[in-house]
Structure formats: C-alpha cells, structure tokens
C-alpha cells in the first residue's frame, strides 16, 4: 500500500517544475497577461511530452493516467502558467480517444502539441443567458460562452444534451471573440456558430460526464498548486517583513492565519491525488470524489487566496509582487466547469438525493 506519488511521478513533477521555474517566471506570465503569446511555453511543455501524457500509445501518446496529469496541473497552477493544458492535453485527448468515431490522426497531432483543442462545455453544465448550441445534419448554430483556450485550432463543443462535437476554429461558420476576465493568465472566448461543420464525437452522456470529471479534478489540482504557492509566499513574506521591530511571522495573529491556511490546504493534496487516481482506478468512487474535490478546493482556494493576500498587507494588494495573478486564477478555477454550489448539488444527485 502506497498512497502518494511514485518515483516516476516525482520525477515528472520535478521536470515540469524545473521547466516552469526556468521558463515561466512571473515576468513571462505578465507578458502573456498583457497580450503576449503562450506559444513558446506550450512548445516547451510539448517538448517535455505534456500534451501526449494521456493520449494512448497507439496514437503516439504516453498513455499515462489522470494522476500524472494532475501532477502537471498542480505545477502549472503553482507557476500560474498560461497554456492550453486543460483542454488540449487532458479533456480533449480523453474524449477523442474514447470516441467511437476514431480520431487517431488528430490525436497524434494533439500529442505533439501542434494542434490545440479548446473546450466549449458551458451550455452543457449550467446554461446561462439563453446561449445555446444546436446541431442538426452536421451543422452547428448558436453560441458558446467562456470557451477555453483562445488560440485553439478546434473546439470540443457540448450541447445541452451532453452530445459532443468537434468544430474547427478555421471554419467559415465560426467566429471567435475574446472574453476578458479577471484571470489574465488564461484566455476565454465567445464562439458564435452559424452553420459551422460539427464532427460528431460522442452521444454518450457518460463520456461527457467522465470528461467533465477529469477537467474538474485538473482545475482542483491547479488550485492546489496555486494556493500552495500563495501560502508559501505568505510564510516567506511574513518571515522577511518586519514591523514593530520583529518579523510579522512572530505575531500570533499572522502565525495562526498561516496555520489555518496550511490546515485547510494540506488535506486537499491527498484529496486531489485520490480523486485523480479514482478516475482511472476506483471508478465506483470517481464521480462523487471529482465533484467534492472540485467544490472543496474552490472553497479552500478562496480562503487561502484571501488570507495569503492579507498576510502580505498592502503589498498583497499591489501589482508589485504579482500575487493577485494567483488570487484571480484561483477565483477563475472556482467558477470554471461549475461553481461550488452547483457542483455540490451534482454530488447530492449522484447519491440519489435531488
């Protein structure tokens, strides 16, 4: 019995962290936030094999498991790295490789990072603003809001009935416009379809659900990494910062704020590990754990991001340290693919209570 990461997984984590430390410092994130491109970052991650992680070996992938992807997601969150990881390296490869339609060639391109797939699931989760997606005779009409990422080559689109389709970003019937959010480390878009070609991926609502679960666990892992970074930064700052002739880390109020963050966050690590592991290896617990992990990390993430900002005092409120990028990323993870109340109501339904 071993609850935790294998040596290979620790190595993967170290590799990704080293790459991100060297290549995605805060200045690089700022560049992207100010309108720059994430292509060199994605190229670097592709060289490490990240987009191939979940793709089956028969399609040129590495054929690893959700837990491996969660490890990467945590690192990306820790470094608030831009990039299409969630859609193109996780959700799309999973959905497409489990599709009965056969996407072998595309999967190979996704695995090398040369083709990026975005996700447009908003209407299948909690429909808002009368936006909707209609597919008939291989053509799609309607609107998807807050699809990610903004530079995808194609989008995995879901309609209200959890049918999934693939739509090319180059299609004449698709238009794409930027939807600015508080989180500048990733970009979302509005997709408007007007008789765009929609290639069927799946009519199996179970595959949609599993793809969604996977995405939610990745968001939880991203929050875990980002929140851990904020806690680490807060502790470090408190040790350096002196007021009243002593480091503020020696004030009991500051210590207890940090202790409360650690006490809330530390169990989340085991939770994210188990949730990711369950997706592949404990199917009977996978869906419920995915919901709870998404919702719980949203709550803990909010608490940590707010408290870590407070520990930083005025400096946390400024742009000088860039701490707000973590704050906002955690805030965005909270809302993406289902806000906590919504996801908890799904958890209840899964247990036969609705």
């Amino acid at each position, binding site marked *: 019995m071993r609850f935790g990461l294998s040596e290979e997984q620790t190595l993967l984590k170290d590799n990704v962290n080293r790459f991100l430390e060297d290549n995605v410092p805060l200045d690089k994130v700022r560049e992207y936030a100010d309108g720059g491109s994430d292509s060199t970052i994605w190229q670097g991650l592709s060289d490490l094999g990240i987009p191939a992680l979940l793709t089956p070996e028969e399609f040129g992938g590495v054929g690893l498991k959700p837990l491996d992807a969660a490890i990467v997601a945590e690192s990306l969150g820790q470094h608030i790295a831009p990039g299409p990881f969630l859609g193109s390296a996780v959700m799309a490869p999973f959905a497409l490789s489990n599709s009965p339609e056969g996407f072998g060639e595309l999967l190979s391109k996704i695995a090398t990072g040369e083709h990026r797939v975005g996700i447009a699931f908003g209407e299948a989760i909690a429909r*808002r603003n009368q936006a909707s997606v209609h597919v008939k005779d291989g053509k799609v009409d309607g609107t998807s809001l807050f699809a990610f990422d903004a530079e995808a080559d194609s989008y995995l689109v879901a309609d209200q009935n959890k049918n999934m389709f693939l739509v090319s970003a180059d299609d004449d019937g698709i238009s794409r416009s930027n939807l600015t959010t508080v989180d500048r480390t990733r970009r979302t878009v509005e997709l408007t379809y007007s008789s765009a070609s929609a290639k069927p991926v799946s009519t199996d609502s179970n595959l949609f659900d599993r793809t969604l679960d996977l995405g939610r666990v990745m968001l939880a892992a991203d929050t875990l990494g980002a929140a851990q970074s904020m806690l680490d930064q807060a502790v470090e700052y408190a040790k350096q910062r002196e*007021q*009243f*002739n002593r480091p503020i880390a020696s004030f009991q109020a500051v210590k207890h704020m940090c202790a409360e963050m650690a006490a809330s966050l530390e169990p989340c690590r085991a939770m994210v590990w188990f949730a990711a592991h369950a997706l592949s290896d404990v199917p009977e617990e996978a869906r419920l754990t995915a919901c709870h992990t998404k919702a719980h990390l949203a709550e803990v993430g909010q608490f940590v991001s707010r408290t870590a900002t*407070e520990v930083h005092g005025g400096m946390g409120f400024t742009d000088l340290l860039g701490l707000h990028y973590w704050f906002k990323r955690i805030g965005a993870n909270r*809302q993406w693919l289902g806000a906590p109340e919504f996801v908890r109501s799904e958890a209840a339904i899964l247990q036969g209570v609705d």
Partner: protein
Amino acid sequence: MDLSFGPEYDDFRSDVVNFLDKNSDKAPKGGDMRGEQAKDWQKLLIENGYTCRTIPKEYGGFGAEPDIIRSRIIGEEFSKSRINPGLGGQGISMLVPTLLEMGTEEQKQKFIRPTIHGDMIWCQGYSEPGAGSDLASLTTAAVLDGDEWVVNGQKIWTSTAHLADWIFCLVRSEPEAPKHKGISFLLFEMTTPGIEIRPLVDMTGVANFNETFFTDVRVPKNQIVGERGQGWQVANAILGHERDTLAPPNTAQTRINALVELMKTETAGGERLIDNPIYKDRLMKLQGRVLAMKYNDMRVLSSRLNPGQDASLSRMITKLQGTELRHELEGLAIDIMGEVGLSYDDNPHLRGAGSWQREYMYYLGLIIGGGTSQIQKNIISERGLGMPREPKIEKKAV
C-alpha cells in the same frame, strides 16, 4: 427611541431638495475635479452651506455651527439625487481639519481657502514601504539645513500624487528621539525639485495609488504644522476619522439592493438566481448583517447628538465589520453568476460595469488598508475590551 429629526430639519431637507431641483444642471458630471465647472459648483455649494459647512467664513467656508443632522441630510439628499456633492480628496477631508486644529494663523490663511475651492490639490505622504501597520517606524528623513528641511526617502499609497499641487507629509526629523517623538508634519509643493512619482497599479488593474520618491527635496523651515517632533500627534488628531468613512453602511445597503436586482434578472438553467434557495439563503444572511450595521450606524450617529450615550465600541468595529461584509457581498454576486461572474474590463457580458469584481478586490484592499483587520482587532481588544497590550519588543541592536 426617537428616530425623527424634528420639524426644523424637515424644512432644511426641503431647502436642500429645492436647491438640487433648481441647480442640478450646474453640477459637473463624472470625475473631473479640476475643471472650471467643478470649481464653480464647489463655490455655489459653499455659499449655500452644502459643503465645507463648518469651516469658518474667514478661511473661505460657510461658517456654520456643527450640526450632524444637517450634514447627514445634505449627504442623504445629494446621494439620493446622484448629484455631485462637491470636491473631495485628502486635502479637504484630512489636511483642512488638521490645520484648523493645529495650524498657525498664517497657515490657515494661506492654505484653507484655496484648498476648499479646488485651487490647491493635496496628497498624503504617510505610509512607507517599511512602515505600514507600524506607521511610526517611518524613515523618510528631514534634516534641517539653514532655513530649509532637506527631505530624502520614499512614500507609498500617495493616492493623488500625480494630480496634487502640494503634499502633507510625515518625516523623521529627530532620529535620536523615541520613534513616536521624532516625527514632524511638513507641507510642500509637488513641483519642488527632487520629487519623482511612480504610479502604483493594484490588483483591480488600476493605478489608484502612487509611490513617491524624495531626493534632497528642500522645504522652507516654516512649512511645518505643529512643533518639531510633534508630527505623530498632529497626524493622529484626525486619523481616526478616516477609518469611519471606509465602509459606510448606507453604501452596503445600496449594494445589496443592486445584488437583489441582479439575482432577479440573471438566470441559470432557466431559473432566476434569486429562486435558488442556497443563493437566497446566502443573500438573506448578508441582508441581516447589513441591517445590523445600519442600526449600529444610527446608534453611532445618535451618540454624537446625545451627550452621555456611549457608542465607542459600535464605532470601533465599523471598519472591521463593514469591509468584511462588503467583500463577502460582492463575492456572492460573483459566485451566483458562474463564469459570467469572472467578466472584467471590456468583456461584453459584464454586469454592473464590472463593479462586482472590482469592489470584491477593492474591499479586500480595504480590509488591509487604513489599519489591517489584525490591527483593528488589537485596537478593539485593547481599547474596547481593556485587554492588555502585547509585551513590547525593544528594537534590536543592528
């Protein structure tokens, strides 16, 4: 319990309403506070006693006796009609009261009239990168050289530095004295050579504040308020007032009404958000807290009108509770909107012009600024509940 203000105040309220009806076209719209229209409007308001009401006539004010109820009625009616209530800023709200209490006759004559008429805009130089909660540890140095102070150092959170004509500034003039006794309160022009201003962008994405750097800035010796080394007392004479105004309960009331409207118009899965029992319960919880703070505020007002009523604890907790309440209130709005709640800046799906996210962050800033919540809790426990101060740690030898 008597919640009425009495008939003479009803008349006064009518006067204010009539004034606003007749003159609303003269009021400037939007934020420009330096234009001629803004100055003319300010002049008209002062003449009618609707701003700078208690500042003596000899210094350019209206010269009325203090009357909290009249001031509140003015505030209420201007707010209700959404008409510009006159010039604000730290010069008028902080420096002028300081000068009235501690300034020389010459300083009052020189500074108050142009300040309240918008001809002299001020910024505040208190906080430093190394002196936040522990403001008294500030290190910006002022050394007397002949008839001039020579100022070197750095200030932060100087909100309107880029617009200001003058700064009122705390400096360390007596480096050998105990830290609270070595500070002086200087006034100087922002055009003085040696001043550099850098905008300070905050988490809302806007440069609401600045960093201000001083290199051998020379200030005439007499531009000091109070004596050398008295700066801490001068500043503290009015610092408490600032905290009261950071989270006024009536704006929380306005915001929660806006939130109710938002929840009635937004839908998810075809259902109005206000019909979601979980969101509704969170809304009601907040509404209860907003009401408690509203009545608390009425109690504070009453204690200022009725000698002998004590509401010192009510007043002491206002900033702590009010900022937290607003942060949570704005956060609920974001939560209920799902991904739409993340919208910012030029996003076409923005609700309330982006105010929900902006205020959510801004109020986190206010939880920290103007005395962090930790400092507030120290104050409440020590001054409000009589609990002992923490044992003091002496400055380490360097």
